[in-house]
């Protein structure tokens, strides 16, 4: 298994898509910092009355979203890239235990997603916090919620494995990416338009809403906005839903490995 893991690690970092993803994630951190700097410089020029209305939503959520999509795509490409090029035949001829190949990919991607997701979140917070400095801008004047920052890791991990599972089961980049976008973007819009209380109930179990609930953040309380579901799942409940999503992608993927490799 260690041989397989080191092979998958080599495969992951020896293709261009991985470098592009790394660049996109770095750009998202830089973009978040630039946005924060812009808000801070606006704040400096404002009258005290206007300053009351100025708020900045947490930039970590922005960089987390980028991480989620990037790792979902990396997870998809880890398998579809092999099917598209025919490399999969060499891979499965070298390792007839196909489940082990999937497991090795899941381990490599999972560790990367966990590390990069956590690091991005912490780094984004640290950079933005340094830029805001002592300015009491809303949301940045509160003490740091470290738990909320750390949920970025598991959330990114979940997206990476869902991508890997969808890519393996569908064997098509386009199909799997469409499925991820549907889960990540389309379903939340659909959920938002459902009649109450179903908008919140369905909304609470959507992929992108799980990480705050894992940290125990009450979104409705935080933003006070309509359409944002309140805290419906306990942290343990959120963790269970995240695990269920991951398994729901990986189990069909494992079963689909039995098919012929043409």
């Amino acid at each position, binding site marked *: 298994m260690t041989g397989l893991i080191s092979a998958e690690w*080599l495969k992951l970092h020896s293709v261009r898509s991985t470098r592009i993803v790394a660049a996109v994630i770095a750009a998202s951190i830089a973009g978040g910092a630039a946005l924060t700097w812009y808000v801070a410089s606006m704040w400096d020029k404002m009258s005290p009355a206007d300053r009351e209305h100025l708020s900045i939503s947490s930039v970590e959520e922005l960089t987390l979203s980028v991480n989620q999509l990037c790792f979902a795509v990396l997870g998809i490409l880890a398998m579809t890239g092999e099917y598209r090029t025919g*490399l999969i035949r*060499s891979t499965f001829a070298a390792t007839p235990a196909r489940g082990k190949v999937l497991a090795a990919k899941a381990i490599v991607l999972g560790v990367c997603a966990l590390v990069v997701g956590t690091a991005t979140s912490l780094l984004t917070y640290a950079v933005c916090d340094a830029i805001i400095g002592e300015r009491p801008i809303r949301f940045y004047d509160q003490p740091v919620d470290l738990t909320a920052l750390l949920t970025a890791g598991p959330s990114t991990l979940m997206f990476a494995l869902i991508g890997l599972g969808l890519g393996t089961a569908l064997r098509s980049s386009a199909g799997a990416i469409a499925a991820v976008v549907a889960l990540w973007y389309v379903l939340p819009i659909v959920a938002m338009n459902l009649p109450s209380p179903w908008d919140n109930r369905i909304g609470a179990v959507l992929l992108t809403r799980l990480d705050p609930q894992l940290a125990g953040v009450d979104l409705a309380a935080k933003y006070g906005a309509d359409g944002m579901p309140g805290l419906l799942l306990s942290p343990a409940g959120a963790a269970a839903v995240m695990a269920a999503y991951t398994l729901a992608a990986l189990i069909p993927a494992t079963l689909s490995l039995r098919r012929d490799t043409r």
Partner: protein
Amino acid sequence: MIEVIELTKRYGRTLAVDGLSFQVKPGLVTGFLGPNGAGKSTTMRAILGLDAPDSGRALVDGRPYIEIRQPMRVVGALLDASSVHPGRSALNHLRALARTNRIGTSAVVSVMERVGLAGVARKKVGAFSLGMKQRLGIAAALLGDPAVLMFDEPVNGLDPEGVRWIRELMRGLAGDGRTVLVSSHLMSEMQLTADRLVIIGRGKLIEDATVGELTKRFQRGVLVRSPRGEELAAALSSAGATVTPEGGGLSVQGLDVPSIGDLAAAKGIPLHEVTPRGASLEEAYMRLTADSVEHKSAGYKAVAS
């Protein structure tokens, strides 16, 4: 040693391989011949456990491929030269494969030198010509120093120098006592490389014989003309040849041209024509597979592609 036993594989309604049985023995190059669509690649994929057969078995050294741990050390296979990620360098492609079977980097370096790709090891495979990709695929097959090798259409896209290189490589591998199975749809190529031929058509075995046996079977003898035909026929028959009259001449089987000439000279019989007419294996192959060609061109019975 490869054994294919009553192998049957369907894709939907297409019967790709139909109760196929044959053996591939060590120390020989076995040519796996058949027109396009005959089921050669399907059989090879089934041997490698990539496609599950509907019935029958394929065994390598007596066991199913999928039960072999670190199979690259037992079987090396070139299936499709384009089975590589174009964005990865040749070196990284081979290193990743090697790691899965715990094969060291020194083996990677030495196979790259052996196939002549050492100079482009760090180049992306996407920039490779088809011939270079074939060499990379062969390098992958040789990585684990396996005793059984399978090559699916290895000469496709190679220049004459590359074709000769492959031929010598396969002869050398068989000379080491390894089992070598190489598929092709061209008899002309196999005639030069193979010791044994397994010929299939529409998924069924048509012929399993040595190149020598096939040549002999399709030998059409020597055409001889002489003004003293009857006398010559008697002399040739008593020397052990089979003689049949043919269009004013004699068709002689069982004696070669020098023997016929010597015999006639010894008897003082003048010869007006001596034409050896060994049917080429190419013709033999065309005749054997004529019924199983998928896309036959009108008025052209050949299997060329």
